């Protein structure tokens, strides 16, 4: 029997679920291996009987915790897909602000109607079995994680910084170009896709497990950049991870 899989989303942009549609012809191959029983974005049918739950988006309010816990109860495996679910992601930018001010900024004096708390990855609420990092997650890594899970193996996710891939791709270092880049401490696995396209690493895959802070400080000193520059860029995606450390 094919394993039953389900997709869910919380606070996020649904860009990770979009990558499923972007698999194009490979969707048909995927459908040969798994049975999709719940995927609100593309199907009307819904079943709570599933083996693997893929969850996109951060948890940003108390009332969403029950839904997450129910998903955990129903599923044998829970996989966090995309930065928001895996590390808290861009949503955690608001964690640095006074949440009453945040609500007021967007909804004015009716802000109190809209419940919110510090954005967090789903493993701050429920145990998670596997992660597909990235904003958005890459299709290849998603397929690789699915294959590993179907074979009962632990997915292999790089635990070294983006710099390793970036050097291999022979990019000119962003620091040498006078820009600030967080590739030195960000988990690789994206093949340094953003630097390859002419920009910088923004840190969307989160911190590596043991970021080499001393060497990062050396880089900052060497290129005359300030700790404030670094902290500002760290906050784009690392908000929750930074708070936890």
């Amino acid at each position, binding site marked *: 029997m094919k394993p039953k899989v389900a997709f869910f989303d919380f606070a996020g942009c649904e860009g990770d679920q979009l990558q499923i549609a972007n698999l194009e012809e490979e969707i048909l191959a995927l459908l040969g291996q798994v049975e999709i029983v719940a995927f609100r974005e593309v*199907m009307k049918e819904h079943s709570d009987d599933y083996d693997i739950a893929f969850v996109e988006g951060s948890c940003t309010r108390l009332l969403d915790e029950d839904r997450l816990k129910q998903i955990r109860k129903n599923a044998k495996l829970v996989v966090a897909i995309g930065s928001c679910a895996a590390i808290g992601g861009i949503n955690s930018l608001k964690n640095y602000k006074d949440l009453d001010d945040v609500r007021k900024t*967007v909804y004015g004096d009716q802000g109190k109607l809209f419940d919110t708390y510090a954005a967090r990855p789903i493993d701050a609420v429920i145990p998670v079995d596997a992660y597909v990092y990235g904003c958005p997650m890459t299709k290849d890594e998603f397929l690789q994680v699915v294959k590993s899970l179907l074979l009962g193996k632990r997915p292999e996710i790089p635990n070294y910084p983006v710099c390793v891939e970036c050097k291999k791709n022979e990019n000119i270092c962003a620091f040498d170009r006078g820009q600030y880049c967080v590739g030195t401490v960000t988990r690789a696995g994206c093949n340094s896709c953003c630097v390859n396209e*002419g920009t910088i690493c923004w840190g969307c895959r989160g911190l590596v497990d043991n970021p080499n802070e001393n060497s990062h400080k050396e880089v900052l000193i060497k290129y005359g950049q300030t700790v404030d520059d670094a902290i500002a860029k760290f906050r784009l995606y690392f908000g929750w991870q930074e708070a936890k450390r």
Partner: protein
Amino acid sequence: MKDMDLEVHYVTRVEGHGNIYVNVKKGVIERCEWAIPEAPRFFEAMVVGRQWNELHHITSRICGICSIGHTLASLKATEAAMGIQLGDQDLKLRKLALHAENMQSHILHLGFLVLPDLMGVGSVIPLASSHPEEVKTVLRLHKLANEMSNLICGRTTHPQRLIPGGFAKLPTIKELARLRAKLKESIPDLQAVAGLIKKLASKLPDFNRETEFIALTKKEEYALYDGDLASTDTGKAPIGEYLSHTNEYIIPISTAKRAKHVRDSYMVGALARFNLNYDKLSPMAKQAAALFGLKPVCHNPFMNNIAQLVETVHTVEDSIKLIDEIEAVGMQMQPDYYRPDIKVKAGRGIGAVEVPRGILFHDYMYNQRGVCTKANCIIPTNQNHANIELDMKALLPKILDKPEKEIELNLEMLVRAYDPCISCSTHYVNVHFV
């Protein structure tokens, strides 16, 4: 006399979570509401304190489906604030970026989200085995749109190459020429999709409710990347006056804001653009419209699906034309890791762009260090929420004698016709018959 409590929690096959609540007692409609329970994300607060060269990266994350559109609206707002002018080639490439996203989004909506309703199934999944050729045609077009995004933007979702003042990296003219060849080859696929939908078009309810349509408009072209503000009720206005059109307000049952102009609601999106700018459509797009008897001004919201199809044809034809034009003057290349020289200054900038679901506004204030001090983003789906609910209220009495399942389907199809993007508008759709 009928009693009915209908509650569709999380309407499916839409982007995000929305609920429909219908309550009928002895044949009298007591409640008919469209509510958004999606978790709000507070982007307008999150960008305050961030640098001018980060805003497009952050606001792209408002929505995965229209990330290119958000990036472009954001860049235009920043560029307006800093007084940055773009070259002609960059403008053409940005128009191609927008075309790529509109095509991707429209095909996804028509082929994956709407087609199942027309074919009487719950999703595209069973169609993969019952109608493999049709599904493969849709997938081919979808893939082509994504190839185009990849080529112009460096990625399909959350683009990388688009930066303030231009592009960090350019496609080569050879790559553009290859894309053009593929666009030309896709025309039979487009005709096949049009033919398929034509056969099923009688399933779209014949329902009309007069409303106001708002979109960008431009003398020279079918306005998508820029133009003036246009309304079917009040005519043209400069973009700077957008707040007097959108008038956002909050209702307690929804985390998404709503908007109204001169009536209780208005509509944005493909049908609004079609209604306001029909004359500027490409020749084949006009033929596609004629196939369905679609003429401006059309007040049937279900025809938004057909307007999307018409726009997809326009996108392909206009993209071919844009590449021809770039080729004719000769592609200008730039250094690797290009960063335009920008003088940061204080000021306000507004960026308005037509994205798949309608007109999108980003409006920022910067201080002299280029730090954002205030932001306002007005999302197409928010502008449509009130119109969706008023359509539901007008449609429900006409279909009240039908079985409950059919009523539910019709209401869901109505919501889906707007292709709502609730991640954008906060982020969700559900129907509750309570």
